[in-house]
């Protein structure tokens, strides 16, 4: 008799990746939306920079390595988007700036315009996710924009309510983090080795990451439940998601950790191959932008693949549960 068992996380992610790779239009759609949002910011800051530089000859000088003194001057004189420029954000290590801000939650205190624009993007992503999850569940169907956006519209309200719930969860986690790190600092007040104190903070960061992941996973599995089981209540879906995560901690967290590790590898690879700001030719500038976009497409691919893998997991649990019921 063929055994019906739970699917492993590596297999699930592999299948998830296969599913997404076979649907490049889905990745392109999501990437295009995010790039469109970013493009608005890019155009705005380019305009600000031109305005700030005026007729300065330094406008040409900026084609080479970035003059930190000039950057300081520009940033000091601006309260617009230019004020958000930091060396690390113009470098290829910018992705780690965001990773760090994800752990700390500091992004919320960034430039208000950027944060507001980011929240608008999150709303857009909440909207898109209905179509994404529905399409990944009904994956034998070809991607049709009309059907996709109809699903997005259908689930938007429920996903939005769920986002408010999970938003409260994220807020609580960051509150814990804001107490946890100063607590570690107080506990380490007599530590005289950097290595030891750093390890303590890493443990703290890991705790925050696990808690953030927990909220995130509950949100993911709740969304899958909302679509897969046509649930109406976001709260009940969240409870369902929580039960699923707690009932299958190794698989849910394992899958998340695996995809996060792949993202880290992708980011390190990007850091390695992407030309830095010292390059001056237009061709290299274009290549750097292209590599950046490829990285971002890779990032979205991983995100969608994880969704697909999570759906695989849920389907396998449902199959096992169904078989179990039949056996009894």
């Amino acid at each position, binding site marked *: 008799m063929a055994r019906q068992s739970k699917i492993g996380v590596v297999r699930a992610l592999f299948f998830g990746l296969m599913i997404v790779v076979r649907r490049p239009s889905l990745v392109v759609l999501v990437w295009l939306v995010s790039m469109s949002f*970013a493009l608005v910011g*890019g155009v705005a800051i380019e305009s600000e*920079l031109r305005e700030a530089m005026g007729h300065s000859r330094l406008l*040409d000088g900026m084609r080479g390595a970035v003059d930190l*003194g000039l950057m300081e001057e520009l940033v*000091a004189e601006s309260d617009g988007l230019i004020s958000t420029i930091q060396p*690390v954000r113009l470098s290829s*290590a910018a992705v780690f700036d965001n990773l760090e801000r994800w752990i700390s939650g500091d992004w919320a205190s960034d430039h208000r315009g950027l944060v507001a624009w980011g929240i608008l993007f*999150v709303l857009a992503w909440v909207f898109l996710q209905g179509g994404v999850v529905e399409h990944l569940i009904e994956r034998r169907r070809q991607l049709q924009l009309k059907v996709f956006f109809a699903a997005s519209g259908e689930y938007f309200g429920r996903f939005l309510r769920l986002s408010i719930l999970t938003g409260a969860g994220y807020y609580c986690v960051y509150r814990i983090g804001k107490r946890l790190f100063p607590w570690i600092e107080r506990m380490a007040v007599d530590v005289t080795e950097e290595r030891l104190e750093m390890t303590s903070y890493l443990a703290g960061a890991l705790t925050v990451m696990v808690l953030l992941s927990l909220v995130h996973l509950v949100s993911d599995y709740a969304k899958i439940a909302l679509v897969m089981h046509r649930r109406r209540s976001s709260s009940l879906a969240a409870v369902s998601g929580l039960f699923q995560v707690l009932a299958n901690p190794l698989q849910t967290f394992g899958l998340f950790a695996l995809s996060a590790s792949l993202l880290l590898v992708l980011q390190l690879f990007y850091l390695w191959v992407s030309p830095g700001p010292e390059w001056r030719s237009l061709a290299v500038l274009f290549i750097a932008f292209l590599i950046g976009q490829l990285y971002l497409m890779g990032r979205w691919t991983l995100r969608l693949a994880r969704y697909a893998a999570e759906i695989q997991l849920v389907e396998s649990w449902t199959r096992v549960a169904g078989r179990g019921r039949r056996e009894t």
Partner: protein
Amino acid sequence: MPAGRSQEVYRLELRGLLERANRIVMLLPRLFPLAVLVVAIAVFTSEAMVLGQVENPAVDPSERSLSARNANYSIEVRLDPETKTLTGRQILTWRNIQDQPTDELWFHLYWNAWRNNQSTWMSEDRIRERSDLKGELAEGDWGWIEIDQMVLLASGGNETTDLTSSLRFAAPDDGNSNDRTVVVATLPQTVNPGSTIQVETTWRAKIPRTFARTGFRGDFFFIAHWFPKLGVFQGTGWNCHQYHASTEYFSDYGVYDVAITLPKGFVLGATGRLLERVENSDGSVTVRHVQEDVHAFTWTTSPNYIALEDRFESEVLPDVDLRLLIQPEHLEQADRHFHATKVALDRYGQWYGPYPYGHLTIIDPAWGSGAGGMEYPTLFTAGTRLFNPFGGGSPEGVTIHEAGHQFWYGLIGNNEFEDAWLDEGLNTFSTGRAMHDEYGDSIYTYRFFVPPETNVRGFFPVFLKGFRYSRSIYGSRLGSYRSTATVDRQDTPSFQYYPSAAGGLSYSKTALWLGTLERYLGWDRLQPAMAEFFRQQLFSHPKPEDFFRTINEVTGSDLSWFFDEVFRSSEHFDYGVGSAVSFPADPEGFHEGEDGLVYRSPPDIPDNKDSSGEIGQVFRTEVVVRRYGSGIFPVDVLLVFEDGEEIRHQWDGASRWRLFVEERAAKLDYAAVDPDEILLLDLRRINNTWVVEQQTKQAPVKWASRWMLWFEDFLSMLAFYG
């Protein structure tokens, strides 16, 4: 560097010049005028008259005195690492070297700045929002010092007198009655010029959790400015300021003979040279250090230090034994500490004068101790990090800076309460110079993983290539000056600077105006002037006017106008090109002709061809340069034309604006004010140039596209929450 000379020729010339200067410095004690000998004889005579004077075998009486040695300390101190306390007994031998008598002694009790939250130091620390300790302080975090007894020892037929009851706290700077950082003892009789007295003091002190680089962390102790320390009697009165959050110290030179008792197993680093080490029956050890001709004594101890030794050797400078106390986790960086220290001893030694003590201790303080980056006589703290790849400028920068303070602070003992810029500014300028000379530009390093809501900086370094981190940025700190440029005049006594502006004014502004002078005069003129100031003021307490006078005399230029601008005012500098246009020079409008006024219409000529299409069209170029800032400095104005021709004008920079007009066969390409970047104090460099027709928009596109990649990734990160 003068244009047209090769670097090697310049180096050889400089070396020859410096060798001559060094020989003069080395011979200086023999060349002292007769008056100094007379004073020395008077010193020995008066000291011999003192009754009950403690014999000091550590000091070789035949040794030539480099300084006045009028404030000498013999101290016995015991550290209790469990209770974080010091117990001390000291004998101060003080000679009045002024021509006025005094019947008081003023002492600093620096550690009382951290006795409670009502001291002047604490108030100022709150204003500058740079508290060393975040959050509430526990009982064991505070620090204090208490005098148990102070006795004037018998001398010249006078009886021993207990001064304890005469002690009173003073707050000469702000009248803060809660400040306990200055204490005054009233003497039973005056101390006349040339007379010497001895005062014995017993005291106790609680070591704080680190404030101002002083204190403990775990079993690490850094003990600076730790005993009742005499102020400086200046004839008109005592110069003994309260302790302030943003300024440092001031003391007379003397001989320190200090015996420190510690638990066995603790490694000690201290000012001076080791004289003896005795193991006591109670399991402790007593280590005795002695140093002549210094104005402070500092020590540090921890069981974790690893002690290493090296030696600075030079053909033109005296050898110096180097001792490094380094944290085990930084052991692989030991050579970098030694090398940077040698760079400082070499460059400063050649530029200004030799380091005379023969030994120097480098301290790598414990992680999180807050003791890094500070200077003390014959000892300094550097400070480094785990994961510290070479090229980022650390710990080399801080090591050179603090080693450099052995010259500007150690050997030149200016009043850091009043003229902090004299050591910090001159040293910051010199650090930038030495760093650039040895290491070139540093690579900008960013450290990731800053734990939120803590004072901890990031852990994991990433070199950000493609960013110019040059001497003018690292060494001069224009960014830090920009935010403080107009907050205070630099000639304001440093302790009265707005607390958060003190760094920008003392370090950055001075480094910038010295850098400006270097570019304006040339290093070959500025360096001998600074060396002469150094030579004249060795082991003394120079004032700003001494510096300005020497610079004027040696350079042969009266730079008073410059010092008025940068020192005696809070003027800020900003020159810029207001507009620049080129247009056909053909006359337009109504002009006088044979039949009266004749109207001439504007020509429609896009390039340098005349109306018949022939080359030869003349263009009129009008460039307006403006002085946006309040400060005045002569600047060049450069006009570069499309055919490559360059015209340079000199402008005294006094008026608010000036129009430069040229008629040439080519249009203007760009105009630049201060094209050689002489005026490092210029707060806005963006407006220093004006390109008539921008050839490219590539630069903003480049920055914007890179920023956009970050922003797009930021949005992807935010998707996590959706």
